[in-house]
């Protein structure tokens, strides 16, 4: 068997693939953050809590209406997205002209409230949620056993990431959006309802977080603190990719997943830290991030 750095190559392929799967969660979450920051200039610190809300919504939908994973994948993001729209209308819309710090503090406070409420009603241990029947089992790839659900996670994540990138960078709607961030007054003069567009964008970003939450429910512990644990890493991903850069968020999300996966083989103790080390290096060399537009 061929060995690379003392690790059998087959094992290494397995680890690379697993890194890619974790990367798809990072990509999905950092994508939502990038969309919100790029279009609204809000650092959405409640993103982790909204990811958690997505997973909880999936659980509640199953409990109270008996609808399983597939309907939840559509319904939960819509519900959580609507709560995002309400938050934008009630609070965020007053903050656009102020410093970034205000939006950050507000959303951080909201995250604490959401997590506190969830803990109060559901406890801290977590809630059960299983892999849908149709995606149980897996494929033997020769070098590893790939669960069907994980394959689906990569496919769905790639699809959603590419779709979002395409809409924002390559369609007329996306062009309006980008123009509205640059110069809202001018875009309004063309008869476009800019505030509504911004509201819907925030709703969409939040829905992306909830979508990732539903995707995570069958494989990770569904608990009130699930988002808080992930969000710091995701912020590091966004900073490395460049704040507000959609493509940057996607590429670094997948890339860092792979790097983290490899760290888990060679030096497992450092696997939670490696992303922050990379962040520090990137900030030293390219303060605007790898794909940042503003230097």
């Amino acid at each position, binding site marked *: 068997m061929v060995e690379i750095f003392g690790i059998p190559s087959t*094992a290494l392929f*397995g*680890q690379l693939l*697993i*890194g890619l*799967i*974790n990367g798809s969660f990072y990509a999905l979450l950092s994508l939502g953050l990038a969309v919100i920051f790029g279009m609204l200039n809000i650092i959405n610190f409640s993103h982790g809590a909204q990811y958690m809300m997505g997973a909880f919504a999936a659980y509640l939908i199953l409990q109270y209406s008996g609808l399983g994973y597939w309907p939840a994948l559509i319904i939960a993001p819509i519900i959580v997205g609507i709560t995002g729209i309400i938050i934008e209308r009630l609070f965020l819309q007053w903050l656009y002209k102020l410093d970034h710090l205000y939006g950050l503090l507000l959303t951080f406070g909201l995250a604490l409230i959401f997590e*506190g409420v969830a*803990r109060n009603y559901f*406890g*801290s*241990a*977590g*809630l*059960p*949620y*299983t*892999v849908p029947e149709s995606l149980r*089992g*897996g494929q033997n790839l020769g070098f*590893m*056993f790939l*669960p069907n*659900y*994980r394959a689906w996670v990569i496919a769905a994540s790639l699809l959603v990431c590419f779709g979002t990138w395409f809409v924002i960078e390559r369609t007329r709607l996306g062009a309006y959006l980008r123009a509205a961030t640059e110069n809202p007054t001018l875009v309004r003069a063309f008869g476009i309802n800019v505030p509504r567009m911004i509201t819907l964008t925030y709703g969409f970003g939040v829905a992306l977080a909830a979508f990732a939450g539903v995707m995570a429910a*069958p*494989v*990770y*512990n*569904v*608990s009130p*603190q*699930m988002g808080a*644990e*992930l969000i710091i890493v995701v912020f590091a991903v966004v900073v490395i990719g460049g704040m507000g850069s959609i493509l940057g968020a996607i590429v670094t999300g997948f890339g860092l997943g792979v790097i983290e*996966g490899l760290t*888990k*083989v060679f030096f*497992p*103790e450092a*696997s*939670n*830290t490696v992303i922050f080390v990379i962040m520090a290096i990137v900030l030293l060399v390219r303060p605007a991030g790898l794909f940042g537009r503003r230097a």
Partner: protein
Amino acid sequence: MRKTLGLAALAVALACGGANAQQVTVKVGVLSDMSSLYSDIGGAGSAAAAKLAIADFAKANPNVKVELISGDHQNKPDIGSQLANQWYDVDKVDLIIDTPNSGVALAVSQITATKNKVFIVSGAAASDLTGPKCSANTIHWTYDTWMLANGTGKALVKTGGDTWFFLTADYAFGHALERDTMAAVEKNGGKVLGKVRHPLNTNDFSSFLLQAQSSKAKIIGLANAGGDTINAIKAGAEFGIVKGGQKFAGLLVFASDVNALGLQTAQGLTLTETWYWDMNDANRAWTKRWQAERGAAGKFPTMVQAGVYSGLTHYLKAVAALKSAADGKAVVAEMKTLPTDDALFGKGSIRADGRKVHPAYLLEVKAPSESKYPGDFYNVRATIPADEAFRPLKEGNCPLVSG
């Protein structure tokens, strides 16, 4: 007439005064994690268990008046210490009970000794509490790391699980659990093929599981807790670890974790506990009362919460016998003299090092098809007798024993 009334009033006053002189007042503080990681293991459920213990005790002993307060240590030793100091000095608390999180428990144990009060640990795991760090004011009630390691480790090796791979949380608790379990495995003729130390709060375990899978070990020992254990088992089910013939050994798994996993995912998991709600009628009856008190019909008490009930009951018995709670050391000495006996843990005793001993149970999580009602989690595989369940007295290096 007036004179008679006056006399009568005096007599009543005297009688009451007499009764007051007999009456003992005790103040109990449940110090727990009320808002975070361990709040389902102890938390409000422990406070509810304490309330039940007090209500039961008051029926037989109306002359002992018990007050109850509770507080949140937020898993921070500094906050726990500050609360303990305030409770002992300002609020005149006589007993602190529960306290999951070994770091906080070790700090509170020290404070309790300097203030000469009583500390009953139900929630924390570190066996150091009755080892090098033992105290004449502290009793370790429900379980500890040695018992978990020995119970699960030994039983699995004896039933054929003789090769192990560890997934260990990379901090003091995980290392201790790994060390104790490795010792138990090797002592019984098993072999440890490898281990991975993962950071605390790891989200994705699939990478570590691949390593465990390729080690071909029969048993994957999870020397971690809470969310980490749940994430590892969830990923394990997905990657077909159990179907592939390997087995998980949860070295610290609570009923609340099994509930969070769901039986579909957790089935076949082997673990050790000292109390299970569905073991006998007394436990089931108590569970119903606990659920009513807690206001949570769908929740099931953990061994930690049951331990709070049992420990507090025994403490109150000792106080009633002494007719005073003032001298903590004397109360603990009395608790060690009196045999323990309550509805949940049955008959038992407390050793010189402060270790409460009772049987432990090796449990296996049921398959969904075997589970007949909510909370029907385990098959009892074996009972480990009280004298084998805990670390032998002389191996603990507790100064109270040698001196």
